[in-house]
Every structure is written in structure tokens, then in C-alpha cells.
């Protein structure tokens, strides 16, 4: 059972995350994108998902990451990500509910580069009971 006191809390990433060209190249190569001057639109999940994992698996919140499946995903992209972007990441646990023995967590990620909001994304994560 996830700690319900965690709802509404925003967690700031401990470190700045710098995007490299080789990370963009590898992500683009999987989907056959040859123009890597900017990152593909879903690239930021690489950053957000690892943030979610480090936050949600903290003992005080208590998500079992091995029971997690992805329910839905939305990106709002204010400008494309490019190599050299350095992101300050924050993640907010927006809602938490129990449905049919599963726990459903809605989380939001905001990625700021030097004060500019670049990508906001929302994920629904389902912890299977």
C-alpha cells in the first residue's frame, strides 16, 4: 500500500541531468529517425521515468517497481530537447487511487533548462495488486 500522505508532494531531482548527443542518437536510431539535431518527442521519458523510479521506490512511499505497468502518457513540449540541455527535474504525485486491487498513481514531471520550462509530462502508473 502506497503512503497516501505522498499525494500532492513535489519532489525535486537531486541532480541536474545533461542530455548528450549520443543519448539522442541512440533513442532516434531505435525508431529509424536519422535527423538528430533535436530529440524525438518522447525522448524526455528517459529522464522522467528514472526520476519516478527513484522517488516512488523510496521506503516512505513504497512502490514495488517490479509490479508497475504504464497506463497512459501525455507530453506537452514547449520546445524540442537538444544535446547540451541541462535539466532540473521535478516530479509531483498528483493523485492516488485504488481500483480493483490495483493502485493507480498519477504523476507529473516538469523539466526546466536554465529556468525555462521545456517539457511537462503526465504519466499514469498502475501498481498491480
Amino acid at each position, binding site marked *: 500500500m502506497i503512503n497516501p500522505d505522498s499525494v500532492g508532494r513535489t519532489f525535486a531531482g537531486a541532480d541536474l541531468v545533461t542530455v548528450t548527443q549520443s*543519448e539522442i542518437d*541512440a*533513442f*532516434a*536510431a*531505435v*525508431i*529509424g*529517425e536519422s*535527423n538528430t539535431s*533535436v*530529440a*524525438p*518527442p*518522447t525522448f524526455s*521519458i*528517459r529522464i522522467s*521515468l*528514472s526520476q519516478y523510479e527513484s522517488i516512488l521506490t523510496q521506503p516512505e512511499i513504497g512502490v514495488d517497481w*517490479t509490479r*508497475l*505497468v*504504464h*497506463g*497512459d*502518457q*501525455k*507530453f*506537452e*513540449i*514547449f520546445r*524540442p530537447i537538444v544535446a547540451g540541455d541541462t535539466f532540473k527535474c521535478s516530479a509531483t504525485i498528483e493523485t492516488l487511487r485504488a481500483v480493483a486491487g490495483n493502485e493507480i498513481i498519477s504523476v507529473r514531471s516538469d523539466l526546466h533548462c536554465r529556468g525555462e520550462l521545456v517539457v511537462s509530462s503526465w504519466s499514469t502508473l498502475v501498481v498491480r495488486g
Partner: protein
Amino acid sequence: MVNFGGARMIEIGAEIPQRVFYIDRTMLKAYADASGDQNPIHQNEEFAVSVGLPNVIAHGMLTMALVGKYVTDWSGGSATVHELSARFIKPVIVPMGEKTDLTITGTVAAIEGDRIKLDLVATSAGIKVLGMAKAVVTK
């Protein structure tokens, strides 16, 4: 109808040509490494079956990345996407040694200023795998 400098006309209801992507285990490994999502349900058949799945399944975010590729090939590159969203309603099953299809179609749903809203449909083996798949792009 919107006239983009007289060169290109886009109408509500216009269809983007269908495209088929193929997903295999090699692609799943490459996506796991590129995305950092090393969940074994996407690579290890024994593990996937042990947690009640029929076989190894593709990352939902890989299917969404391919939808992004479909959209951006139409709209003019990765920089043209402002919003992208989808629900993961059914798994894309990827048996060993096989190539599983991801078949994508899209329709222009609305045009607001320079923003084009697209409704997208993605199926695999004839089954709809994404729900409410939408994008907002400029073209």
C-alpha cells in the same frame, strides 16, 4: 481549411497514409538501452510469463515513440510536435524470432491557428493497442 502560404492545404478529416512498423526482440533491447527502461517483461520471456503475461511485450513507450515517428514524418520532423498522448490499452506481444506489426493511421481532427490536432490509431495483430492517441503539431 487552412492555407499554409498557398503551398499546402490541410483539411479536417484528411487521412495520413497508413504505415506499418515492425517490432522484434532486438528492437526491444535497443529501446531498453536507449530509454533506460530495463524492466525484464520487455526482454525475458520466462520472467514475463511468470508475472502473468502471454509473452515478452513491447514497452508502451516504444509504441508511443513509433507513433511519434509516424506523426513527425508527416508533419516535418521531431521539432513539430507540441503535444502527444495515449493510453496503453493492450500489450504488443513480441515472440522470440518474430516481427510483430505496429500499424498506425491518423486523421486530422481539428485545426486551430497553426496547430493541427491529429487522432491516431495503432493496432498490432489486428488489435487496438493504444487508446485516445492524439497529437498536436505544426506543419
